[in-house]
């Protein structure tokens, strides 16, 4: 990366360097699991139905 100008350095300092950081609340994990199930189940069903079609290609009719 090229040498940065001082004003851009301060943009840097005011941006990524001084932000908050935290650990997720442990009680949030069940909600995370539920959210992933909600989108994951339809997605897996779609992948399964596509795989059923693709089987003809992979293993013959």
């Amino acid at each position, binding site marked *: *990366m*090229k*040498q*940065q*100008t001082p*004003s*851009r350095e*301060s*943009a*840097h*300092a*005011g*941006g*990524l*360097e*001084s*932000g*908050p*950081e*935290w*650990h*997720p*609340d442990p009680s*949030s*994990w069940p*909600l*995370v699991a539920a*959210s*992933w199930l*909600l*989108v994951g189940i*339809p*997605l897996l*069903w*779609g*992948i399964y*139905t*596509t*795989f*059923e*079609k*693709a*089987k*003809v*290609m*992979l293993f*013959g*009719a």
Partner: protein
Amino acid sequence: MAQLLSKERIIARPGFNRWLVPPAALAIHLCIGMAYGFSVFWKPLGGALVGADGNAVPACAAGATTFAEKASGTLKALVATDCNWTQFDLGWMYTLFFVVLGCSAAVWGGWLERAGPRKAGLVSAVCWCGGLLVSALGVYWHQLWMMWLGSGVIGGVGLGLGYISPVSTLIKWFPDRRGMATGMAIMGFGGGAMIGSPFATLLMSHFKTPTDPGVWQTFVTMAVVYFVFMLGGAFGYRVPPPGWRPEGWRPVASTGSNTMITMHHVHLKNAHRTPQFWLLWLALCLNVSAGIGIIGAASPMLQETFGGQLFGKPEVGFGQFTDTDKVAAAAVGAGFVGLISLFNIFGRFLWASFSDRLGRKRTYYTFFLLGTVLYVLAPFAARGDHLALFVACFCIIASMYGGGFSTIPAYLADMFGTQFVGAIHGRILTAWSTAGILGPVVVNYIHDTRVAQGIAPEHLYDSTFYILAAMLVLGFVANMLVRPVADRYFMTAAELDAERKLSHETANAK
């Protein structure tokens, strides 16, 4: 209501779990991804109007063979209520989808950055699902122009806003895994048709009667289901406070080990003034062009190239297919399309995640180098009757086609910073719109020309593959020319603070 949708309202409070954001993004992308699966409606709609004898009435473009005749039939079909629509008439919906997607993402990307992902997600849901409802009316009244306007134009706006709505947010939540985070969302867009197509087939078989294929009822049902899902996604979005980072993580660039990741931010108004923007635009356009045409023609390409070898009769060429052979070949062709779709969606996640380790530029190098080798190899696989090798070539190409889409947001964030990455990504999606026209035109034009020259079916695609390989070589050069953005394009600290105030990023969470 306005308060509920505002960006201030969705700034996360300490303890928020960032892993809640990707499912919200997936909920939206899985719904709008149905755009890829719209062809499931073409056949039922082609016979929607039934005469007194119980048979489908002729198409508006019945007997048309040339492009001009077909286009004339389409013009008639737009408002006629006494003739059926052809695949040619309906196929324009795809063009509308991807042209409007790119244009709306480019036009409203800047608004999205300030309004926030929740408002954009809601507008996307209203447009996409509202467009489906307008289409349902169009099918009910047999008005093709309403289909085009509903799903193609209004729905296309929903596609554009929905597609880019989570990009900026995900990149800010996952500064340590930008590629993986956006790859998960964009995988959803690829997977939308996998859910939507069989879902639509189920609904149509439920609603159909001897005189009605059940399409408008399917559109209404899908609009309601998708609206609920998309609303859930939009209200699930949270944005991190400015500068948030995962506990213990430090930016890579600050250690000086990665010169291709900037810590600064380019304003949207300056992005297109940089050569990097246009080089990445070209790289994306060429990668998509090289994949989209072949993916669209996958089934006929396989059947023409391998003929009876697909169903155990290697002595039968494509030109000698009986009706039974055609059914058997079509089943294998559909399987090939399914296999390509699987590689396309998994490629979106895997290549983007891989780019977090390898770097974006090297990942794009891989797409162009490996893609070129595979396209050069494909004609040899065809000549030697190596079906498995041929299929493997196109599965890998499909994975890199998807990977190009999912890696580009992280590439842009690396080059231009995160402040306007969603809007810049929106603008670069015009490359997709361009490729959506360029890729199929190149493939279909060369195919039709070689058919007219009387070339044997198994060699119809040889020169197409070499041309697509040449396009990838050009893409390789464009990617090679990408260098870090010059300092003069970055925002100053004062400009960044002013922009964050405009974007309501300094308010407290509620």
